[in-house]
């Protein structure tokens, strides 16, 4: 398991450096495909940027599971994410899959990014008018949510 396959950075990601570093790391690994996804903060609804909280222990175990899953397919996943504030047109998220042939990487990047959105313990806030507002309406409850709302049993 690659120790630096999951990177967390304070503030915006340096996209060119990260993509180039990952390329160099795997350039002699005999992968035929390198598929990347780069998430960029868009200007919408008058926001000045986005801000993120991350809970690292569970993010690490979630990512480790994905590394194992990728390994079974002969592939490698890598991911970088921002902590704290990221301004408009900057990047807060990069994911990538390397695989021997294109089909696995193309399918895995889709599945990985979707599962990331639904499960990774990261919370997003809009930065607007000097406030940091939880993006509740764009957030997804983690699978199994609501356990503690169950009624009392005698």
């Amino acid at each position: 398991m690659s120790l630096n396959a999951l990177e967390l950075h304070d503030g915006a990601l340096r996209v060119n450096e990260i993509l180039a570093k990952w390329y160099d790391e795997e350039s002699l690994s005999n992968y035929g495909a390198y598929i990347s996804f780069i998430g960029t903060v868009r200007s919408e609804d008058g926001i000045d940027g986005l801000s993120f909280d991350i809970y690292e222990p569970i993010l690490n175990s979630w990512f480790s599971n994905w590394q194992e899953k990728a390994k079974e397919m002969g592939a490698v996943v890598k991911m970088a994410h921002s902590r704290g504030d990221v301004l408009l047109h900057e990047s807060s998220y990069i994911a990538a899959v390397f695989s021997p042939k294109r089909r696995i990487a193309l399918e895995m990047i889709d599945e990985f990014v979707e599962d990331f959105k639904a499960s990774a313990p990261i919370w997003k806030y809009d930065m607007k008018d000097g406030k940091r507002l939880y993006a509740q309406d764009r957030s997804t409850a983690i699978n199994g949510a609501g356990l503690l709302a169950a009624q009392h049993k005698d």
Partner: protein
Amino acid sequence: MIKVEFLGPIQKDAIELEATTLQEVANALQSDDVAAEWLKSCAVAVNDTLVATLETPLKDGDKVSLLPPVCGG
């Protein structure tokens, strides 16, 4: 004692409770004004592993975490 921590946007400091199962934690949090609002949408972890049943046993020093809806990227 076990520790309950509230992650991300939940505006509440960690608390300590006497509890031997998650059901007891649920009972305590349902009567807490701030926590109760979040219970329906939160996933739960014990010692950083997500759990799926209220029968999960707890022991002294365990950490229970509430994870509200997420949105990375």
